[in-house]
């Protein structure tokens, strides 16, 4: 019971926490930033891709944890 409670709370925070990160990556992709001229501009689509990949990997971790719940 305790394990299930902890799992769902942590899953809610960790997977829910990916939403503001994806939104932030999307915002940085859409809006050009004001970095100094000597700082290279990153590929916004790649940055967004990395963020989504991280979110998916986190989701996979929680699915594996769900399957391992006692």
């Amino acid at each position, binding site marked *: 019971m305790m394990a299930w409670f902890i799992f769902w709370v942590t899953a809610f925070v960790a997977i829910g926490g990916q939403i503001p990160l994806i939104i932030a990556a999307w915002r940085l992709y859409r809006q050009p930033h004001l970095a*100094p001229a000597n700082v290279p501009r990153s590929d916004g689509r790649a940055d967004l891709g*990395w*963020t989504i990949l991280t979110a998916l990997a986190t989701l996979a971790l929680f699915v594996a944890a769900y399957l*391992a719940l006692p």
Partner: protein
Amino acid sequence: MAARTVVRVLLIGWLLTLATIISGGLVSVSGSSTTCLSWPLCLEELRNGQNPLIWISLTHRALVALALLAVVAGMVAVWRRPETTGLPRIFAFAAGFLFILQALAGALLVWGIPAMVADVWHLSGALLAFGAQTLTLLLITLPAQSPSERVTGRVAQTQRRLRRMAWWLAASAGVAALAIGARSAAPTLEMATALPANSVGAMSFVALLSVWMAFELRRRLQPVAQPVALAIAVPRYSLLLPGLALLALVGLFITPTGHLLSLIAGTILWAGTLAIAVALQRIPFHVVSTQGVARPAPAWRSVIADYISLTKPKVISLLLVTTLTTMFITEAGIPSWWLVLWTMIGGYLAAGGAGAINCAFDSDIDVNMGRTSRRPVPSGRISPRAAFIFGAVLSILSIIVLWVFTTPLAAFFAFLGIVYYAYFYTGWLKRTTWQNIIIGGGAGAIPPLVGWTAVTGSVSLMAVVLFAIIFYWTPPHFWALALVKQKDYARAGVPMLPVVAGEAETRWQILVYSAIMMAVSLLPVAIGAMSWIYLLGAVLLGLRFMRDAWAVWRVGDQAAIWGLYKYSLLYLALLFAVMVADRLIIG
């Protein structure tokens, strides 16, 4: 009551407690505890038998009774003295409380209560009471003094360093004394269930640390420059510390009488280290700063120091902590010390090799940053080519060491970590995207996988969770540093998040990543790999992390950012230490 009388009472209690510990050790070594089977006295056995060992047992009990009276009298004297407030009162109370507890544990021992309760805690309680008494006595005899001269800069830094080192040594000596106590009371509890420290390992560590402390004290506190007699005595007699530590260490290899020798030496060493720690805190010392004693180092020594610095020892230390602690929490149980040693050597070589290659590739960036411009490559002391060859050699050695002495999978993960950090992060991510720290954080998260696979030879879900904890810990940790050093990063052309997205965005993402990190850190409890001890520790440590991350988001000043950066280092080490404690205590 006059101060002198209070000190006398405390001193008598201190000496009697020391005598109690020694006589207790003698009872244990001689096996005389079995001759006296009632408590507090064993008059029946005394009348019937002629066994001389009974007198050892009775003498011990008489000493305990006298010490108990003296300790309680000392506690009352301290509390009745209006001038004495704060810490001395707390330690005096702790001494009395612990002494009574240990006396009751002695009674349990006689009444046949199992070893863990009585055997170990009887002696441990006496040792802890002795430590509390030592601190009470020292704090009363060495009252805090306001500094006669204002110290700044390097002198103040050296003072702080010496004090930190002294407290670190005192704490280590305390752990070692308790470990010796556990060993001499119950040898089967060598790796004590309630005390995760091997007595030989703990005392070896204390011996090394005390040699270093004595060396530093003699170098920094030159006797001729000291203003008071006690300040002259501290560096002069500091060599006694390593002497006692060695004595205690040697005694552990001689059974059974050697254990008594170890116990006595370890106990006195603990008191000595506490005395030095309090003295450094309270007595006016004239400290010779690092600058003051600096001599031009020989060329060969500078070259070696430069090559060692290429391996980034400070960065590596935290990586090794995560590797080491992980090795003690796998389902395979406690690993052998040889396996731990080879894994640590392989881990250091791998991380050091990757660090050296990073220095070779990053010299154009490092030269533009204040924090890194004095490194050997950007300052021209070592060429990028030499740094690369050095890093490559270390990396190859690490793979060989881990493959031969641990498992092929551990060697594979070390190889993956080297390529990830030295090529994927350094050569590409760092220079091209603000995701550098997030995705690059995977490199720093690999050491637990090395530790785990070195012990088990396979990867399990818990190992991946450890990876994820460090992965999500990395952005808040490094972005805090990047917020402080963002001008450096901008000058060097590194697209760190604060440089390309601004402070507000970075502070917000620090908060989000911290929350995810804390959630992931609780996952080991959900999957049944850790118990309530870890849950409690992870929640408390995580809440403090969230408080600091919240302060960075809401306030965002330098104090808040530095606070998070420094705490994040401590957080990771403590979180992994709590995992070890959970595994050793609960099993």
